[in-house]
């Protein structure tokens, strides 16, 4: 059973993605139950695979019995297993939040929504688990196609934004594909582990440089790294709440994971990839600051969170660029932490919009009394984003900072601190309206309108995760993330 776990994690949601829309023709509730159970099974399988890998070493699965490097292999190591578990667990939270009728402003009918959502999860899990460069491209496109359909279900503005994302996303995927073609021409293999061995012999060629540039640009677009983030704010703003909650939480992270996988596990450490990382470092410093400044300028709270995501992607890539063990730990912890925090924030904000129709920050007056639990969750997650101890956000930023100090990159240190201060500014604006400003005089105080339980519970679970994993950060770092570092840096 354990031997088949790597493929089960991907195949289960894929099979359900086909079956669920069919079941929904008979009963929407049954379709919802199947979707929930499948995602829960995928989550259990990834957690089980992760714990097995941490105890016994990497788990490899040869698809169809073809031995690598000829066949495609799926690899669960502490890095891919950890990210897969993160994706599956957040997917469970989001599908419960969406519920059988898909609350939160999606025009897709329940069964179609759940089918597409399962397909999106399949694609993301596949990107994470595959050990084959071309297979990664296929999963990248599977997840993107499902995401386009889901994002477009949020009304006409969402559709226009999605078309623009589709154009940019296809450019990104084609760049990645071309880069893979160059690497294949150089090495004659598509298997990541095999390619890593063979690339050292050809790392001085110009074709190798071109390959690295193409792949890095492609994945940076997908990860919405400033200044390639243009597609993100509109796409996130107009999508239905559960869709934004999930996509904002994990989709860009998975692209960042792919970037990390290629630059640290496939390409040789010196040469073109080192130069690419240096460039990414400078770009991400600008991303960190620009994202925070643009977030401050927004009136629409969803757009504010979207720009804050652009800044946070900068944090993650910055850690990759610094490359010291502490910085990499910080990056991976932030990848994990930001997924939980941003998922929580977007679900809360989406719930508030679904319940009250309010999405402008200036209309949030009195929200602390109208929806106390949702707002409390928002506050905890926002404080974690700012980086207040003992939340998860504090510890990831702490590791990143100590990594930057270790590397002697003082400019990066300044950027990190400054961006946290800017985070205080734009989140406290929301707090001020929600808790301190009274609703306009003369108007009757709006009644308490808390979200229904199935929407509230996932938000509170994610909020608890922000606090619990913050307190347990030693265990997370020591038990999983340290083992996920590339060979030379692992203990």
């Amino acid at each position: 059973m354990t031997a088949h776990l790597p493929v089960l994690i991907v195949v289960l949601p894929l099979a359900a993605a086909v079956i669920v829309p069919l079941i929904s023709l008979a009963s929407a509730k049954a379709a919802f139950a199947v979707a929930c159970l499948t995602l829960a099974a995928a989550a259990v399988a990834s957690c089980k695979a992760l714990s097995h890998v941490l105890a016994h070493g990497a788990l490899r699965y040869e698809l169809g019995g073809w031995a690598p490097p000829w066949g495609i292999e799926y690899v669960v190591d502490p890095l891919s297993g950890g990210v897969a578990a993160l994706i599956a667990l957040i997917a469970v939270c989001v599908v419960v939040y969406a519920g059988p009728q898909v609350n939160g402003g999606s025009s897709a009918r329940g069964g179609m929504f759940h089918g597409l959502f399962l397909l999106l999860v399949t694609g993301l899990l596949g990107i994470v688990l595959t050990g084959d460069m071309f297979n990664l491209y296929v999963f990248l496109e599977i997840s993107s196609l499902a995401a386009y359909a889901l994002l477009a279900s949020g009304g006409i503005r969402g559709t226009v934004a999605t078309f623009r994302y589709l154009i940019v996303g296809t450019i990104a995927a084609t760049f990645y594909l071309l880069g893979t073609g160059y690497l294949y021409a150089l090495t004659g293999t598509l298997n990541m582990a095999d390619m890593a061995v063979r690339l050292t012999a050809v790392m001085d060629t110009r074709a190798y440089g071109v390959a690295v540039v193409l792949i890095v640009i492609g994945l940076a677009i997908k990860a919405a790294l400033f200044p390639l983030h243009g597609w993100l704010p509109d796409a996130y703003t107009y999508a239905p709440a559960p869709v934004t909650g999930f996509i904002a939480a994990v989709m860009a992270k998975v692209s960042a994971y792919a970037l990390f996988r290629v630059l640290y596990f496939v390409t040789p450490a010196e040469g073109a990839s080192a130069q690419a990382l240096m460039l990414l470092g400078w770009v991400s410093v600008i991303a960190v600051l620009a994202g925070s400044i643009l977030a401050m300028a927004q009136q629409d709270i969803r757009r504010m969170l979207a720009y804050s995501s652009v800044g946070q992607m900068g944090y993650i890539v910055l850690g990759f660029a610094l490359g010291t063990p502490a910085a990499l730990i910080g990056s991976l912890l932030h990848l994990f932490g930001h997924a939980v925090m941003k998922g929580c924030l977007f679900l809360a904000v989406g719930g508030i919009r679904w319940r009250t129709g309010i999405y402008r920050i200036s209309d949030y007056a009195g929200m602390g009394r109208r929806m106390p639990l949702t707002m409390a969750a928002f506050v905890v997650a926002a404080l974690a984003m700012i980086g207040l101890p003992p939340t998860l956000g504090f510890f990831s930023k702490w590791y990143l900072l100590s990594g930057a100090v270790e590397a002697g990159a003082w400019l990066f240190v300044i950027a990190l601190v400054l961006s946290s201060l800017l985070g205080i500014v734009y989140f406290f604006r929301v707090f001020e309206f929600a808790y301190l400003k009274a609703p306009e005089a003369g108007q009757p105080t709006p009644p308490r309108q808390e979200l229904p339980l199935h929407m509230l519970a996932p938000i509170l679970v994610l909020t608890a995760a922000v606090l619990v994993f913050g307190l347990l950060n030693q265990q997370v770092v020591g038990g999983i993330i340290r083992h996920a570092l590339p060979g030379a840096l692992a203990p």
Partner: protein
Amino acid sequence: MWENLSGYLNYWLAAVLLLIGLYGMLGRPNLVKKLMAMNILQVAAILFFIALAEKTGATAPIEVKGLHDVSAYVNPLPHALMLTAIVVGVSTTGVALALLIRIHRHFGTLEEPEILERMRL
């Protein structure tokens, strides 16, 4: 220079198509033209891979009796990969067309500046 051009003619062709596609996707205001340019971009990537598989004087990778020399057959792997890439391209085009139908129904136009103008109102 000439040798560089003629020896790698297939690749130059793919590069030219790639640039035409990129220009169309980023530079043209009409959404359908953007979509057509996207297809050109994908064809460029497909031709690039097929060019990789090519060998002078080689035949299709189906075994000919008595011919066991690898250099007598073109490399079948890029073809197999591109079959998948073509499927991906077709699905992307399908999704994009569905989006365009919805946009056209709502705005009655597919010119991006007009759509953006009307969304601002």
